[in-house]
């Protein structure tokens, strides 16, 4: 880390954190709305429609409702762990946005270990899910938490392997440098060089963010709501926001690593970055409303039997090519 800690840089980070919080909040609303509209259109119904024109304020109304609701804690739940879990799920995610390069200028904290930072802080999420499941003293919650831990731990490995392949290739862990080395045209992006790593990353990201078809920690037809069975009001709201925030981070990292970040065929800028992130998010929603859920052992099998060996092979191949 070469940045000397000055007042300026601290101010920059604080401002960035505020900006990120606003960004995450707004995106939470937007994505909830988008998710429901996508579901509606895929299922040939209008989706949210009544609150505001085309139901655009539905997410706001929902958020207000969640904020206004009483926070209920089950009688025998552990108060500390129970309330810590949603906080722990949500706030560390904000940090993950700091190193993301939205554009060459729009970066919260341009550190040369940005990738590492994201991967390190992403681990907090699983802790939060574990605490939520354990702390709520609910059997479904416990099963969900157990699933969450096994799933997160497993899927972090292929994720890392995919990321490592890019890091090998680029020789840096700074996200903005990774974008900088990619060209403007789609065939100059890393996805053209590393399609396998991209696929592994995408699937692992679905697993890491507990999105369908890998939404096993909360699989509602099996575990009612899994780890957040007992949460109401904003307790649930925080998990909800954290899930969407995690999705944005995962898609952002994917954009940076594989899709050329802020670069595009014309007019480079943050809007290219956002367009790619939202396209990936839409794809994630598309998956959710199309596929059935996998079974837990299949989820782990997919990881250990397919993604992990493929990731290692890919890494070896990358290393071999780089050596040449």
């Amino acid at each position, binding site marked *: 880390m070469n940045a000397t800690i000055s007042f300026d840089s601290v101010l920059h980070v604080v401002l960035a954190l505020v900006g990120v919080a606003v960004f995450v909040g707004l995106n939470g609303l937007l994505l909830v709305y988008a998710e429901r509209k*996508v579901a*509606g*259109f*895929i*299922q*040939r*119904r*209008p989706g949210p*429609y009544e609150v505001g024109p085309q139901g655009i304020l539905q997410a706001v109304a929902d958020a207000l409702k969640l904020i206004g609701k009483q926070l209920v804690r089950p009688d025998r739940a552990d108060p500390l762990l129970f309330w810590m879990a949603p906080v722990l799920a949500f706030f560390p995610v904000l940090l993950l946005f700091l190193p993301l390069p939205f554009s060459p200028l729009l970066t919260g904290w341009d550190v040369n270990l940005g990738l590492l930072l994201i991967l390190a802080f992403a681990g907090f999420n699983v802790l939060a899910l574990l605490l939520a499941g354990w702390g709520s003293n609910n059997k479904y919650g416990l099963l969900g938490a157990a699933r969450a831990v096994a799933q997160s731990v497993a899927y972090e490995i292929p994720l890392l392997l995919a990321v490592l392949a890019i890091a090998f290739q680029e020789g840096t862990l700074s996200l903005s440098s990774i974008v900088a080395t990619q060209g403007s045209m789609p065939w100059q992006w890393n996805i053209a060089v590393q399609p396998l790593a991209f696929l592994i990353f995408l699937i692992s990201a679905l697993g890491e963010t507990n999105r369908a078809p890998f939404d096993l920690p909360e699989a509602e037809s099996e575990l009612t709501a899994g780890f957040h069975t007992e949460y109401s009001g904003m307790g649930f709201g925080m998990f909800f926001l954290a899930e969407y925030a995690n999705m944005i981070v995962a898609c952002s990292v994917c954009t940076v690593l594989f899709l050329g970040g802020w670069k595009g065929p014309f007019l480079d800028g943050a809007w290219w970055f956002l367009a790619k992130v939202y396209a990936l998010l839409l794809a994630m929603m*598309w*998956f959710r*409303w*199309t*596929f059935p859920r996998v079974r837990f052992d299949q989820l782990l099998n997919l990881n250990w039997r397919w993604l992990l060996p493929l990731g290692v092979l890919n890494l070896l191949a990358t290393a071999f090519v780089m050596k040449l």
Partner: protein
Amino acid sequence: MASIFRTIADLWSLVVGLAITGKEFCRPGVTVHYPRAEVTPESAASFRGPIELIGLDKEPAKPRCIACMLCVSACPSGCIAVTRAPAPKPTPEELKAIAEAEARGEKPKRPAPPKAPGTWTYDFSLCSLCGSCVEVCPVDSIGFSNDIYMVGTKREDFVFDQLARLARKAAARKAEPKPAAKPAPSAAPEAAPAPAASPSETGAATPASEA
């Protein structure tokens, strides 16, 4: 090795699925958006909604019902309650005749109660819409309405005074065919435009005016 290829082929099914949902995404919705769009009248026509009384051809505000009570006994849920209309008050001449008859020690000839219901209440909250009453009615005085969008906020909303309902409906129908013309100064006073009249008010819609 073969299994690897098969797995890859299997994964194609996921792409096919995505293509289908993607295609459906672009097609227009199919839901009927209720307050803005309603089920077509043709579609509602065959719907068996809460039962209603059917009026006489000549006097649509008066039911064909002869208060035979067959529907009351046929109903599996006991949701129909009918009482006979009371006998009309004897006219002065009849009163005189009765008094004379009594004086003679004969059985006086009192005016017979009309073959018509005095009250006709129906509790839709108990009804299972089986149609037993419609089928047993000897004078075809009961039919299904096709009221699809009926709502209520309390149980009492679904206890209907059918005579009042019939009168309201008849009045509404009377007003309908000539909307341009000034509504006839209601032939019957109870046919006044009171669409949400309370049952008790319109209960007087069919006083035993036969006598």
